[in-house]
């Protein structure tokens, strides 16, 4: 039987298993290399998080976490939010993150749906715009925006941070939604039209539910990127603090070390993130 090595995907229906044909026995002893490699890499990725969690329980009298283990304590978790600067910065980051997500999702979904449906005149230049936005280095984006704010005499602060965050998130939402859209069967929308649904109804009742995973993914991405952003925010924040800026400032002003509360907050954020993800996975599984 000859099977041509054509383009990937959806080409051949399930071929009958070739177990009837004898094949040279594969060497089995090389198979452990790949998993070992992968697990080591994953361990490397997760290592600092584990260190952070462990050392958030490290006792000590200094202003920063000590490299030496000095005993187990819950102390830092008691005063986790005692510093109003930290709370302020964290709240800013979360609210900016949520607002960025909402705005980017709205703008990005509209754009992604339009671009995923069918080609229209000018789609190429919009593609170029999105590509340039994703490809442009953060430091250039941040500095350029700062330059604009300075020439226009716009005061820097919460608003400018928000503008900047939406600016770099929208393209990612568009790309995600568009890809999902491209996988949608256009026949669904046509069917809706045929059944007399207006464009808005079609959009809300047919299109939107179908691309919801894409929207969620894009939104999640926008949120994470916004909350974790340092470079672009540092150029455009004026005197407003966000969490990454605060952490960096705290470590610099504490002589280069990390204040123990920061590890506590980090661990807490991590645990919440994990719980959310696990919860999401369980919820998804239930729906199926």
């Amino acid at each position, binding site marked *: 039987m000859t099977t041509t090595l054509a383009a990937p995907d959806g080409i051949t229906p399930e071929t009958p298993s070739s177990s009837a044909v004898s094949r040279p026995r594969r060497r089995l002893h090389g198979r452990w290399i790949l998993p070992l490699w992968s697990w080591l890499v994953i361990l490397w990725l997760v290592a600092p998080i584990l260190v952070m969690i462990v050392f958030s329980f490290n006792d000590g009298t200094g202003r920063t976490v000590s490299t030496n283990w000095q005993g187990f304590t819950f102390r830092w978790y008691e005063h986790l939010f005692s510093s109003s600067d930290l709370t302020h910065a964290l709240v800013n980051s979360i609210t900016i993150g949520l607002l960025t997500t909402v705005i980017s999702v709205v703008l990005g979904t*509209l754009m992604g749906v339009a671009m995923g449906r069918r080609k229209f005149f000018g789609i190429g230049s919009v593609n170029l715009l999105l590509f340039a936005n994703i490809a442009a280095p953060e430091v250039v984006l941040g500095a350029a925006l700062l330059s*604009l704010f300075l020439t226009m005499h716009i005061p820097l602060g919460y608003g400018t941070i928000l503008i900047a965050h939406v600016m770099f998130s929208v393209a990612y939402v568009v790309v995600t939604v568009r890809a999902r859209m491209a996988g949608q069967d256009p026949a669904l929308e046509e069917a809706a039209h045929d059944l007399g649904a207006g464009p808005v109804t079609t959009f809300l009742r047919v299109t939107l539910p179908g691309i919801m995973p894409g929207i969620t993914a894009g939104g999640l991405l926008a949120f994470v990127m916004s909350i974790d952003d340092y470079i672009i925010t540092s150029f455009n924040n004026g005197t407003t603090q966000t969490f990454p800026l605060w952490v960096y400032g705290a470590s610099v002003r504490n002589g280069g070390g990390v204040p123990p509360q920061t590890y506590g907050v980090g661990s807490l954020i991590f645990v919440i993130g994990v719980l959310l993800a696990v919860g999401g996975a369980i919820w998804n599984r239930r729906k199926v």
Partner: protein
Amino acid sequence: MSARTVRARLAPYAMIFPGWLWLVIFFVVPLVSMLSVSLMTGSDVDGFTQTWHFHTYVEAWNKYHVQIVRSLIYGLIATGICLVLGYPVAYWIAFRVRQKYKSMILFLLLLPFFVSFIIRTQTWNFILSDNGMVLGLYHALGFHGGHVLNTSTAVIGGLAYNFLPFTILPIYVSLERVHPSLLEASADLYANKTKSFLRVVLPLSIPGIFASVLLTFVPVASDYVNAMILGGTRNTMVGTAIETEYVTNFNPPMASALSFILMAVLLVGVFAYARALGTEEAMEMAATA
């Protein structure tokens, strides 16, 4: 034309308009404005005016070419490391992990991003300290001296660390699309595993490699926070220089010129790479998936 057709024709434009407008105002205009600023001259006290002073670009290159080249080199090395480390992982997840565990493993990869990037990098500062965990172990085993922190190794390591998931995911996506029957067919045609990989899998994963290099190389070369936290002397990157020119030297034209040089170099590199890989066809194939 009926009202409905007109509406259908206009619909895409209406839908892309808000997002497009936001990007034009806050992305295109600033870039153009920055281009304009890069050609100004003046001083902080007296203000800057437009003078079409192209020489600033030459000055920027003369002053900072070491940092620019260094950023590119670090970018290439870190991206290379990410590819070498990441490709096998992507392969493993795509082909060896059972379907029901794939999401979990992918999730494990993204787990570190839940914690702020600054905290993660500062923790490496902590771990790699001369008397910290890594070197402490090293000393306990009887070796002396050696420091990792505040060297280029630490910076490149930090860069690779922070962007590795961006490398793995796109490759994984393109590998995922390779139908297992292709591999079976290849085996049936008496290709051994290496040949199957080199002639079948690798070429099909090229769009993924391209996307992952894009998502890794550009941010890595333009990052400077890793250098700030983990670096020592002789590790300054272009981003730090841009920040200094804005903040310490009150010299927006120089800072802007430097930004454009960086972006031009990166984008030229990326496009050249795209052409070399012949990715236009590959990208079309990927799009039909």
